[in-house]
């Protein structure tokens, strides 16, 4: 029977995805895209009649996915994006204005009359098609993020500048390579022990004709006085504007602050997570060799994302546009 086949096929795909997640090793961009694609498949193939059912299914799968690999936050972020998409499409189908109703606010406290509990139980026929189309738009956005960020490179990198970076970030790599097409500058890469991903970054950059130097992590402070800008990538952007980035980034940020060197973070929007530091932050980390560092927002000058440049104090606003507060906890 076609129905049962679709369900087992869907179940298999989800299991395969979970196994891939547990194995790890994929870049976060790829993970985000495959998560969104899987959620689109769930929307298309799972059995649901109202928006509430679909949100329940997605939330359940989302919890399983985040439990499989807690340090990969992009999975949770994509689930929350899709949940927001469903809410918006539902509100649009109902004809109500979605803008003001979404967030909890003082204004809403004062003006709402009667029960404002949305239970998403109404059935709308075109809802499935609308949600799938919106997820397609999300996928297109995801595909273009690295290019959108790289396009902004020329505004920030000038000739004869010395740029410092740490470890290997595909976003920063694309950013620097795009600037190198028109400008001549020098890059210093901190090797980022113990995995020394900085070596691969340096090799890749020099293949494109960029003058690169590799330094050990201990030399970061010593060299910082000669650096004009620090450009780094990150694993996650937290809700308060801070970062969860590769081990050694906090040191780099402190050294930059000491020398008043601007610290620029290149991060696509799918890395924005509603977590706040202090809330079970480093529970999934090996105590002997911590994989991630927390960098507080005071040390960061600018975030460059696919939608442009933003100050760390503005991150909370971007977050409220991407995710609904009720979805912060899956």
């Amino acid at each position, binding site marked *: 029977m076609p129905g049962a086949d679709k369900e087992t096929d869907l179940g298999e795909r989800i299991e395969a995805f979970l196994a891939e997640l547990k194995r790890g090793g994929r870049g976060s961009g790829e993970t985000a895209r495959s998560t969104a694609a899987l959620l689109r498949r769930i929307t298309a193939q799972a059995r649901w009649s109202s928006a509430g059912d679909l949100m329940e299914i997605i939330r359940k799968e989302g919890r399983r996915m985040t439990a499989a690999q807690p340090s990969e936050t992009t999975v949770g972020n994509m689930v929350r994006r899709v949940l927001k998409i469903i809410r918006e499409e539902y509100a649009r189908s109902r004809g109500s204005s979605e803008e003001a109703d979404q967030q*909890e*606010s*003082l*204004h809403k*406290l*004062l*003006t*709402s*009359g*009667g029960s404002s509990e949305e239970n998403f139980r109404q059935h709308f026929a075109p809802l499935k098609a609308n949600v799938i189309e919106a997820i397609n738009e999300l996928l297109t956005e995801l595909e273009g993020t690295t290019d959108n960020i790289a396009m902004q490179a020329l505004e920030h990198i000038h000739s004869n500048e010395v740029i410092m970076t740490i470890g290997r970030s595909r976003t920063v790599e694309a950013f620097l390579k795009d600037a190198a097409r028109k400008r001549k500058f020098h890059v210093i890469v901190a090797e980022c022990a113990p995995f020394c991903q900085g070596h691969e970054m340096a090799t890749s950059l020099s293949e494109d004709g960029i003058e690169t130097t590799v330094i050990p992590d201990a030399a970061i402070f010593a060299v910082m006085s000669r650096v004009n800008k620090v450009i780094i990538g990150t694993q996650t952007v937290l*809700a*308060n*504007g801070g970062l969860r980035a590769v081990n050694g980034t906090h040191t780099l940020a402190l050294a930059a602050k000491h020398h008043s060197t601007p610290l620029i973070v290149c991060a696509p929007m799918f890395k924005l997570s509603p977590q*706040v530091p*202090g*809330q*079970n932050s480093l529970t999934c980390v090996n105590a002997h060799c911590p994989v991630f560092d927390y960098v507080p*927002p005071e040390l960061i000058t600018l975030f460059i994302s696919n939608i442009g440049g933003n100050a760390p*104090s*503005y991150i*909370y*606003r971007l977050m409220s546009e991407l995710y609904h*507060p009720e979805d912060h906890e899956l």
Partner: protein
Amino acid sequence: LNEAVLFVYFRTQMSQDPDVASAVAAIRSLLEFLKRDQSETILGLRENLTKAIGRLQEADSSVAVSSGGELFLRFISLTSLENPDLSQCRNVMIERGELFLKKISLSRGKVAKLCHTFIKDGAKILTHSSSRVVLKVLESAAADKKRFTVYVTESQPDSAGKLMADKLRRLNIPVTVVLDAAVGYIMEKVDLVIVGAEGVVESGGIINKIGTYQMAVCSKAHNKPFYVVAESFKFVRLYPLNQQDVPHRFKYKADTLKTAEDLNQEHPIIDYTPPSLITLLFTDLGVLTPSAVSDELIKLYL
């Protein structure tokens, strides 16, 4: 309606339920005032309400009452925009007012739910004076089987810190009272600082019992997180640039304002903590950075 009756009603509210926030008591009194009001026009209603709020502030000059009053006035304006006819409007107002009151009486619970996950096992917490919201947060954390110790400042001139310590002891939380002057001394021992707020200003800073600013500066110097817990009805449209900028009517108790000859000789009972010293604000609208506060206020008053 007699304003003296309103005054008495407010006082009874505060004494009957010592746990209620003063802004909530103020709004409850104003709602009662609205129910008994006899004006024929919306403008008349607003005028009466403004006078009533002024009278309430003479009873209790805290920022919280002022913010509660302003919020209620804004509530009236927003509702009257939708229904220009007063008699229809009045019923809608009363119904919405009751709903509003119900919602804000749940705010403290929401704040506690958000904040207690930030308290880890074995944490040492420093707090200032007596705050019902902080008490609720610590209560939730204790109910969650977390083990932590609390240091409370004595908080002169009214020794409110000792009351707080008593309440915490009743919850079986280990607590130590320290001198106000000992904040710098104790700061190296603590892991985090949690304080309440009487008012949250537009810049994201807070107005709270005197001594809070000192604590914030110390915690910044020692790199300890400084958390503020406050319900959203405490957001007030004030933008002080420094301590002197805070209006006199908030700095001193209502009785002092009436009887004092030279205010410069009186001790203020509140101070202003700028947003640069605050790490995060926990409100019933969510966990906010100080920059998010003005956004909320703009959304309300625009």
